[in-house]
C-alpha cells in the first residue's frame, strides 16, 4: 500500500480487482454444494425402437424426436464430497409430459401415466422434490428419470439442480412464480378485460357512425382477443385439459392466432383505418392466415410437422410487425393519444412475439418462459385508456349538451317572458283603446252634441241667450257625469243615483218641482260594468230631464229598491204625461236601446197626472 501514496490510479485498479475476486468467491460459496447435472445416459424408445446413448440436458423431445411420441429413461450419475447433513432439494425446471424421478432406487416423485399417450400434461410446471439426506451417499449416486413424451407438447427433461433446500428452493419458487402464478394472473386479467370489452360492445353504440346506431367493433375485437388470449395462456397452467391432446393443443394454438388477428383488427379500429380499402385486404389476409393456422396446427400437432406452426407464427408476427411499423409511422406524424399508446403496445408486442418465436420455435432452449403473455397486458391497458378517454369525451359532451340545454331553456324563458310582456302590453293597449272608444262616444253623444247644438243655436240667431246657456250647462253636466261615471264604483246603483241628484241639484232648485228621494241601499250589481253604469246614468238622466223640461210636474219621486230578483228604479211625476206609444218621443227609443244594451228592461206608463218610468235590472248575472 505504501506505493500507492503517489499512485492513486493504481490504487483504484487494485481495489477494482479485489472487488471482482470477492464477488467470484462469494458466488462459489453460494453454489459450492449445488450440483447442476447436465449429462445423462438415455434410453429412448420410439415406435418400438430403442436407442441408447449419452445426451446432454436439456433434452427437448420435440427437437430430438420430431413428430413422434415415445418414452425415455435418463440416468444421471454423480458424486458428493460428503453426505449432507441438511435437507436437500431437487429442482427440475421442466420435465414430462409424464414422469417418474428415482434416486438411488427410491421413487422421489411421479406424475402422470407413462403409458397413457396424449393424457394429462405434467410438463407445464417446474418441479421441486425434497431429498432426505440419508438417501444420498458420497459415491455412485444415480438419478433415474423416466418420461413419457407426446407429439409437439414440449416434453423432455431439463438439467437437474440438486443442493441444500434453502439454496435450490428459491430457484424453483422464482420460476414457479413466473410460469404458473403469473400465467394464472394473466388468464384472470384477460378474462375480465375480455368480458368487460364484450359488455361494452353489447351495450355501447357508436353515435358518430353514419346511419343508425351501431355497435362499436373496436370492443368486439378487443373482447375476442382477450378471451382467446385467456384460453391460450391457460394452456400453461392446466395440466389436465378438458379435451384431449392434440385437440387441446390445437385450440391453444388457434387461440394465439385468433388473438393476434383480433388484436391487429382492434389496432386498425383504433387507428381509424377500418374503413380504408386497404383494411379489406388486411382482413382477408388475416382470415386466410387464421384458416391456414388450423391446418398448420393439425400438421404440427397431429402429423408432427412443427415447422408448420412456426411458419404460421412467423407469418402472423411479421404481419403484426409490418402493421406496427405503419401505425408507428402514422403516430409519428401526429395522431391521437389512443393511437400513440396503441402503436407502442403493438410494436412492443410484435418484437416480444418475435423474440418468443425465436426462443421457443427456433433455438433449442428448453424450460424457458414466454414473455408475450406479460407484454400482452399492454393491450389491456390500451383498451382501458381508450375506454376512459371515450367516457371522458362522452361526459364532456353530456356536460356541453346540458349547458346548451340550460341556455336554450333560459333563452326560451326569456322569449316567453317577452311574449308574455307583449301580450300584456297588447291587453293594456286594448283596454286603453276600449276606454278611449267609450270616452269618445261619451264626448260625441254628450258634450259634442251639446256644443254643436249651442253653435247651431248661436248661428241661427233664433235661440235666446237663456236657451244657449241651458245647452252649455247641459254640456258641462254631461262632462261632469262622464267623469263621475269613471269614478263610480262598478254596479253601485245607489251611488249612481245619489251622484246624479247631486249634479242636478241646481236644476232641481231652479225648477218648482218638489223632489222626493226614496233611495234604499242596493248591493252592488256585478253585471253592471263601467259601460253599463254609463248607460244607466244616461237613462235616469234622460228620464229626469224629461220631467224637468216637459212634464210641468209639481212633484217628482225618485225610488230605488231591491225587488228581487231585480233592482228597481222608478221615476214618478204628476205632470201632464205623454203618449208612450210614440217611440220617437223624448228619447224613448234611445232609452230602450240602452236598457237592452245592459240587459235591463225599461217601461213607461203615462196618464195625465201620473207618469212612471221603471227600470228593472236583474240582480244576478
Amino acid at each position, binding site marked *: 500500500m505504501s506505493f500507492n501514496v503517489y499512485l492513486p490510479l493504481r490504487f483504484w485498479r487494485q481495489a477494482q480487482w479485489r472487488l471482482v475476486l470477492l464477488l467470484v468467491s462469494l458466488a462459489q460459496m453460494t453454489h459450492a454444494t449445488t450440483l447442476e447435472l447436465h449429462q445423462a445416459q438415455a434410453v429412448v424408445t420410439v415406435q418400438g425402437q430403442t436407442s441408447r446413448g449419452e445426451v446432454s440436458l436439456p433434452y427437448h423431445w420435440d427437437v430430438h424426436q420430431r413428430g413422434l411420441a415415445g418414452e425415455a429413461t435418463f440416468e444421471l450419475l454423480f458424486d458428493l464430497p460428503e453426505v449432507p447433513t441438511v435437507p436437500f432439494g431437487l429442482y427440475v425446471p421442466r420435465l414430462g409430459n409424464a414422469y417418474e424421478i428415482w434416486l438411488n432406487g427410491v421413487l422421489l416423485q411421479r406424475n402422470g401415466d407413462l403409458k397413457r399417450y396424449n393424457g394429462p400434461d405434467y410438463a407445464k410446471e417446474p418441479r421441486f422434490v425434497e431429498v432426505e439426506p440419508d438417501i444420498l451417499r458420497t459415491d455412485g449416486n444415480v438419478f433415474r428419470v423416466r418420461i413419457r413424451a407426446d407429439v409437439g407438447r414440449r416434453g423432455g427433461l431439463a438439467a437437474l439442480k440438486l443442493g441444500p433446500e434453502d439454496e435450490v428452493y428459491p430457484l424453483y419458487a422464482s420460476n414457479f412464480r413466473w410460469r404458473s402464478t403469473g400465467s394464472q394472473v394473466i388468464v384472470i386479467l384477460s378474462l375480465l378485460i375480455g368480458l368487460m370489452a364484450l359488455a361494452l360492445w353489447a351495450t355501447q353504440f357508436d353515435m358518430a357512425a353514419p346511419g343508425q346506431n351501431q355497435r362499436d367493433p373496436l370492443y368486439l375485437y378487443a373482447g375476442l382477443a382477450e378471451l382467446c388470449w385467456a384460453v391460450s395462456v391457460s394452456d400453461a397452467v392446466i395440466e389436465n385439459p378438458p379435451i384431449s391432446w392434440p385437440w387441446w393443443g390445437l385450440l391453444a394454438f388457434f387461440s394465439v392466432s385468433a388473438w393476434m388477428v383480433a388484436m391487429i383488427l382492434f389496432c386498425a379500429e383504433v387507428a381509424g383505418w377500418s374503413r380504408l380499402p386497404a383494411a379489406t385486404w388486411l382482413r382477408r389476409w388475416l382470415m386466410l392466415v387464421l384458416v391456414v393456422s388450423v391446418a398448420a396446427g393439425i400438421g404440427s400437432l397431429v402429423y408432427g410437422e412443427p415447422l408448420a406452426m412456426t411458419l404460421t407464427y412467423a407469418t402472423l408476427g411479421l404481419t403484426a410487425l409490418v402493421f406496427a411499423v405503419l401505425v408507428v409511422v402514422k403516430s409519428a406524424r401526429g395522431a391521437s393519444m389512443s393511437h400513440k399508446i396503441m402503436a407502442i403496445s403493438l410494436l412492443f408486442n410484435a418484437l416480444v412475439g418475435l423474440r418468443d418465436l425465436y426462443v421457443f420455435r427456433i433455438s433449442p432452449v428448453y424450460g424457458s418462459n414466454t414473455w408475450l403473455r406479460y407484454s400482452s397486458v399492454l393491450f389491456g391497458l390500451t383498451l382501458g385508456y381508450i375506454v376512459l378517454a371515450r367516457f371522458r369525451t362522452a361526459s364532456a359532451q353530456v356536460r356541453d349538451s346540458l349547458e346548451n340545454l340550460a341556455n336554450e331553456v333560459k333563452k326560451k324563458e326569456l322569449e316567453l317572458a317577452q311574449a308574455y310582456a307583449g301580450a300584456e302590453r297588447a291587453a293594456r293597449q286594448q283596454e286603453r283603446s276600449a276606454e278611449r272608444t267609450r270616452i269618445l262616444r261619451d264626448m260625441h253623444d254628450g258634450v259634442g252634441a251639446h256644443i254643436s247644438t249651442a253653435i247651431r243655436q248661436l248661428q241661427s240667431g233664433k235661440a235666446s241667450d237663456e236657451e244657449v246657456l241651458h245647452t252649455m250647462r247641459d254640456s258641462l253636466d254631461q262632462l261632469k257625469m262622464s267623469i263621475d261615471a269613471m269614478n263610480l264604483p262598478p254596479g253601485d246603483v245607489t*251611488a249612481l243615483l*245619489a251622484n246624479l241628484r*247631486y249634479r242636478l241639484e241646481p236644476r232641481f232648485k231652479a225648477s218648482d218641482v218638489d223632489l222626493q228621494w226614496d233611495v*234604499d241601499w242596493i248591493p252592488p250589481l256585478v253585471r253592471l260594468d263601467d259601460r253599463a253604469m254609463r248607460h244607466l246614468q244616461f237613462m235616469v238622466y234622460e228620464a229626469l230631464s224629461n220631467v224637468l223640461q216637459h212634464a210641468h210636474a209639481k212633484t217628482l219621486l225618485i225610488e230605488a229598491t231591491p225587488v228581487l230578483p231585480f233592482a228597481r228604479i222608478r221615476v214618478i211625476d204628476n205632470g201632464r204625461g205623454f203618449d208612450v206609444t210614440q217611440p220617437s218621443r223624448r228619447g224613448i227609443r234611445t232609452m230602450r236601446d240602452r236598457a237592452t244594451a245592459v240587459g235591463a228592461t225599461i217601461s213607461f206608463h203615462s196618464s195625465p197626472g201620473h207618469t212612471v218610468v221603471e227600470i228593472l235590472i236583474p240582480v244576478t248575472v
Partner: protein
Amino acid sequence: MWRVLVVEDDPLMREFFAGSVSHCDALQLIAAVGSVAEARTWLSRDASAVDVLLIDLGLPDGSGLEVIRLAIALNPVCEPLVISMFGDEDNVLASIEAGALGYIHKDSTPDDIAQTIMDMRKGASPISPMIARRVLFKYRFNESNKAVAPVDIAQIAIKNIADAAMATDTADSQSVLSPREHEVLSLIARGFSYGEIARLQGLTVHTVQTHIKKLYGKLSVHSKSEAVFEATRMGLLGIR
C-alpha cells in the same frame, strides 16, 4: 266682513271670482293673483289678513295644495276654499286633506260663489255623495284593516309612539268618524240632502253642516298624522 284672497291663473275666471267676491257686501277682496309665487308673497307678507283663500289647484308654477298648506300653517283660522272644475273626488279629497274646508264649481253663478263662501264661514261645508262614500270607504277600510291584518308588532309600536306625539293637537285619530258622522256620511252617500238628513236624524240642518265641517278638519289632521306615521315608518323622523 271677511277678507278674501283669490288665486286663479285664468284671467277671465280670476276676474269673475274677484267680481263675485267684490259684489258681496259681506266679503272684501284683498287681492286676486295668478300663481303660487304671488300667493306665497301675499301670505308671507301678512297671512293673518286672509280669512278666506279661494284657490285653483292647477296653477302654472305649482299646485294650489302647497298654498293651502302654507296658509293654514301661517294662519290656522284661515279657511281655504278650492275652485274645482268638476268637483271630482280625487282632487277634492286631496284638497280636504291639505286643509281645505270646501270647494266651489267653476261654473257656479256669481251669487252661488258668494253664498258658498258665506255658508262655509257660517259652518257649512259642501260634500258630494261620491266624496262621502269615498271617505266612508277609506276609513272603514282602515278600521277593518287594523282588525284583520297581521300587523308587524314593531309597526304598531311605532304608530303608537307617532300617535302619542300627535296627541297634543289632535283627537283620537284611531276613530276618525264618530257614529253620528258615520251615519250622516252614509245618508249623504245615498243621495239625501242635508234637510232630509236632518229630518231623518232629528237634527237641525245646521248641526248636520257642522258635522261635515268638523269632519273636514278631522280628515285634514288625520292625513297629517298619517303622514307622520308614514314618515316615522320610513325612518324620516327620529322617533324611536
